[in-house]
């Protein structure tokens, strides 16, 4: 956490508003579920593999609900102070600076804790009082308790797939959220997403999606995680810019997902089989 970031937080909450509609294709009923959760003030957990559109979905929902979106990327060193806020030394006095969570609670933003399992356990506990019907955020250091405004919504994302057993989300945390499950979009939809994201023609997008499916078959057979829609979109973008499809897939699909030479060769052969 740098001071620049914290300073930034003190600026306008408006900068967290999403003004342009992000592209998102609903796969099932996730939009409806999310809206209902929002109106009933139920915190939401988005489950699913990396790069399948969780973050994009939250952005879309924030846009639709016209709420600011504050995203906190969780990591091992993220402390409770980092999210709640802390005293800062300014000149010869200490000044309280709200953390992103406090900001969201006060302004009724959607607070999105991305990859929440990565956060330390003591940090995760901070959000607990916000997730039940009290909807409060105790700020220990100030001896305050803030009640969340009605529009505040807590969203976490969680990828049950690849983390080690040490990073399993605790039941006490899990059971405070309504869960919406995400997976890679179905074929037709993924083709449309790729076309939209990259401007690729239908045939090329189809081939990329086929590649995606084949590579995802290898999950648990040596791959921790299948290739994400995001990576396919990168590959599509490269192809669109005139890079040879095989090279594009090498750079945007194979290299990012594996360091294992055998696996590398296998996926290359799959790429070669799909792209003439």
């Amino acid at each position, binding site marked *: 956490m740098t001071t620049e970031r914290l300073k930034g937080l003190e600026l306008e909450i408006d900068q967290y508003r999403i003004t342009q509609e992000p592209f998102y294709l609903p796969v099932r009923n996730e939009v409806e579920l999310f809206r209902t959760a929002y109106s009933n003030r139920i915190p939401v957990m988005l489950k699913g593999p990396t790069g399948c559109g969780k973050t994009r979905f939250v952005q879309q929902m924030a846009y639709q609900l016209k709420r600011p979106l504050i995203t906190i990327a969780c990591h091992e060193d993220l402390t409770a*102070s980092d999210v709640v806020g802390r005293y800062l030394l300014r000149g010869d006095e200490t000044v309280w600076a709200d953390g992103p969570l406090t900001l969201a609670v006060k302004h009724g933003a959607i607070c999105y804790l991305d990859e929440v399992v990565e956060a330390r356990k003591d940090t995760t506990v901070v959000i607990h009082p916000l997730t039940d019907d009290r909807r409060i955020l105790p700020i220990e250091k100030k001896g305050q308790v803030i009640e969340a405004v009605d529009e505040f919504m807590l969203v976490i994302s969680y990828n049950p797939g690849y983390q080690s057993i040490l990073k399993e989300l605790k039941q006490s945390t899990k059971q405070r959220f309504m869960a919406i499950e995400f997976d890679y979009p179905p074929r037709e939809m993924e083709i449309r997403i790729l076309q939209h994201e990259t401007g690729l023609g239908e045939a090329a997008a189809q081939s990329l999606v086929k590649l995606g499916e*084949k590579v995802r078959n290898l999950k648990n*057979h040596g791959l921790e995680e299948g290739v994400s829609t995001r990576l396919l979109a990168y590959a599509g973008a490269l192809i669109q810019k005139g890079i040879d499809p095989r090279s594009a897939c090498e750079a945007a699909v194979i290299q990012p997902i594996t360091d294992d030479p055998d*696996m590398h060769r296998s996926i290359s052969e799959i790429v070669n*089989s799909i792209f*003439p």
Partner: protein
Amino acid sequence: MPDPIQPMSPPPFLTGFCGKEMDDASQRALFETIAALAPSDRSTLLELLEELLSTAPKAAAAGVRNLTRILQTLAPAQSLAWLDLGTSISSQSSTAAQKYFLESPDLLAMTDPARRLPLLTLGLELSDGHYGVVMDFIRAGPQLPAGIGTADQTAWMETGLQLAEEDLVLAVEYFRISPEVLHQIPVADLPLWVQLGRHLVRPNALGKPDYLKVIEYFRLSPETLSGLEPADLRRPFLELGTVLARKSADDGMAYLRTGPTILREFDSPIHRRLFLSEGRRLADAITSGSRDPSIVLDYLREGSKIFQAIEHNPTDFITWVDAGLSLLAKNPERAKAYFSGRSKTGRDTTERLIGGILLKTISRTLTLYAEGLSGRSIVIRPTTDLPAKLRETIGDSPATDGRTIYLPDRIRLFPNDDDNFRLYKMTTLHEAGHLEFGTYEPDLDKMKDVIETVAAEYGRSPSSDRPLQTAADYFGLFPNPSWARSLWTLLEDARVDFHLRAEYPGVRRDMDQIVALDLQSRPPLEGLPPRAAVHEALLQLSITDTTEAPLELAETVSGAYDLLLELKKPSATATDSLRVLARLYRFLEEQFRRFPNVRGETDPLGMQEKSPDDSTEQASSPDQRGTAPSPSTLSYRGVMHPDWVRFHSDDATVPVDPARLGSGPLPSAPRSESRDQILQDGRTEAAAKENIPDSGTKTGSTRPMDLEASGNPVFFYDEWDERAQEYRPKWCRLYEHRIRPESSLIVQQTLSSHGPVLRLLRRRFQSLRPEAFRKMKRQSHGDDLDLDAVIEARTELRNGRTPQDTLYIRNEKRLRDVAVAFLIDMSGSTSRQIASARKCVIEVEQEALILMAEALHAVGDPFAIYGFSGDSKDRVDFYIIKDFSDALNAAIHERIGAMRSLNQNRDGTAIRHAAAKLERQPAKTRLLILLSDGKPLDTGYAGDHSLQDTKRALKEARRRGIHPYCITIDQEASRYVTEMYGEVSHTIIDQVATLPDKLPRIYRRLTT
């Protein structure tokens, strides 16, 4: 009437002698014969007789008695030579002469008349000094091969004479054996043959010559040499043997025993010659460099295999030998390892020479490729893993049973490995295509009408008690099931290839390349019998859509092709293939009615294949059964086994009856999801195959230890050969066992008597547990303000100075992240008693382990206890007393109690295995503690080799991020530990009894 004896009356010395020795009739006969001789001969004869009678009267008696017969059968000159030789012998030994006179007449009678005189003349020469061998010499006469002329005979004798000059024993053997040998080699090679034999004579322990080897050599020679064909191979064979025997009689002998067998393995004389000449090159290099001659023996054994493996390519073979020779110049030990096939360099060289691609090197790539494409778990295995019975029918063709794809273990069809890989890839793709496009899961419900039609048409309805289960059952409804099967194979392959080409445009080019090569070797349609021609045409059409059908078949082919095209559609399914089959079968059957000879064709091009079902299902129609191989298909298309194509139906699940699979189901392959599990368990393929001695659930009293039955996984480990400076690949075989708990006195005693010690230990080790958090002061950010820092900062500020901005306290979590494995030497020497403690070493070790286990339990570090012993490289036993995943409980104590002193110890292998297990622990710090009581010692594992291998194994462990630590309780260990443990930290405990006290201390020290 003139008296015939008148011209010569026998001299008195003769009449007097004969009067004593012979009856009257014999005397008369002798005198008459003598009288018939020409005067000059007669006088010579009488002179000789006189001399003989005067020197050796006893021998002379025998001579005189046989003289008549000699004179009557032999020419006068021969007779004189005979007598001359006898006289010469008798001057040296009367007994020998007597023997000569008695036995030689018969021998000479058998000898070729033209050869008698030379033989006797040479014998005379020989008798001078070597009368002892003359009889053997004469005896050889009749046995000499017909082609031996006088000159040859002389040469033969002279070789013997020379030998006799040196060694009479050898000369006797020579004359006994050489006539037979002369059937195999020319006289000119005799000296070589003898020379080799002379090298085999070595002084024995008493300093006297040891003839055993040479006699064996001589006696086996005729057989050995006759086994070498063609005859011109024999000289180089002997030459190589001579070079070898000169260096070492033992090696020479081993060569003579094994060489011919090895040479016979080569079919071509050219290859035999090359093999020998290369051997000679090696032998010469060894001689000139004074290297170990046994390398040549290694060469013979290993080289022949390699020569076969590289398909007798002379250039490649010479390259292989050259590589070995260059090693020989640098490091003879490595060369020995190279030629004996023990070295990695050797194997690599061979692999390179053999060329092609090995399945094992790319099977993972192919597996992932197939799994990716088909979206299923797939196991790729070499066809050599197929049950033998199945292999007989399908050979090395690729095959799949729906989950396992069997591929040839090596493809070297093309000079270029890219092409070989391409073929592997296409084969995998095609087989994976069968899986992806549902070949093995046709839908019975969509087949019912066709099945009924076929059954009705051919009158072979499926029996009611056994519904159709597999495609094989379906083919059984046709009059010729084998033909139906081969047509189906063709249709289904065509359908799958069509799908593949549509789905994966990238493979089209690869497939086209393989097909183009394949088609070159397809038979031309012209001249094939109609049925085979149509089949061939369809096969070509199935992939290229063009063929050149003979005119009279054009209609048939085009009709069949129309049917085939119905499957070359994106919507076509495996069920469609089976449906189209019925139509194609009927269509072709009708068409073939036009060709009268088709009906007579019993088995054109081996259309009928023996299917495992034939024996039971079609016993009534023996004409349908054939044994010919299946018609060859395209190289990347494998054999499909209709038994594995199981109908599925939505109505009812068809029960699987394993007995129905004639050849039995394929050996079940492990599901790939559980692959990691398999690694963990160590249940390797080998484990399944090895016939491991039952490790027993029985509690036989003879068993040293009670092991839990767990299918004993087997592992193979390399071993370091210090002298050759390389690994011996897969040298040692390690069996993993679990010890069955066994209550023992030592455990109870330790637990009860060490009560206070245990409590102390627990407390000490508990204190090692790190605090959950540690406060880090003066951080730039953190959970709390650091009051001291804030006050300081305020002071600074008041004083107008810029304060430090590190004002926070941060709580940091610290983890103790240590995993430890104890590896205990359980060799026989641990049974040694320790005087001071009235216990034996292993008991002290057990005591130490029990305490250690308690201490570790207190600190919470994951730990494992392993023991090892063994007997030779093929049996290294690795005992799991406590694995990382086992909880510490009474059973573990009892397992520790069940440890026993066993056999030998091959430390390196055990270290490698323990390290491999430890490596899988997620802990940051991984510690391997080796507890040994002496030098490693095992069969073929002693001295420097064992020290160096152990050192190497420890080094490997370090390289894998493991910290090895060695504790030895051998008082004399200081002499070798530094050599063995090298840079690895170690300690010597000289008072064994203190081990239980010291072990936990050492551990504490290591981990704090």
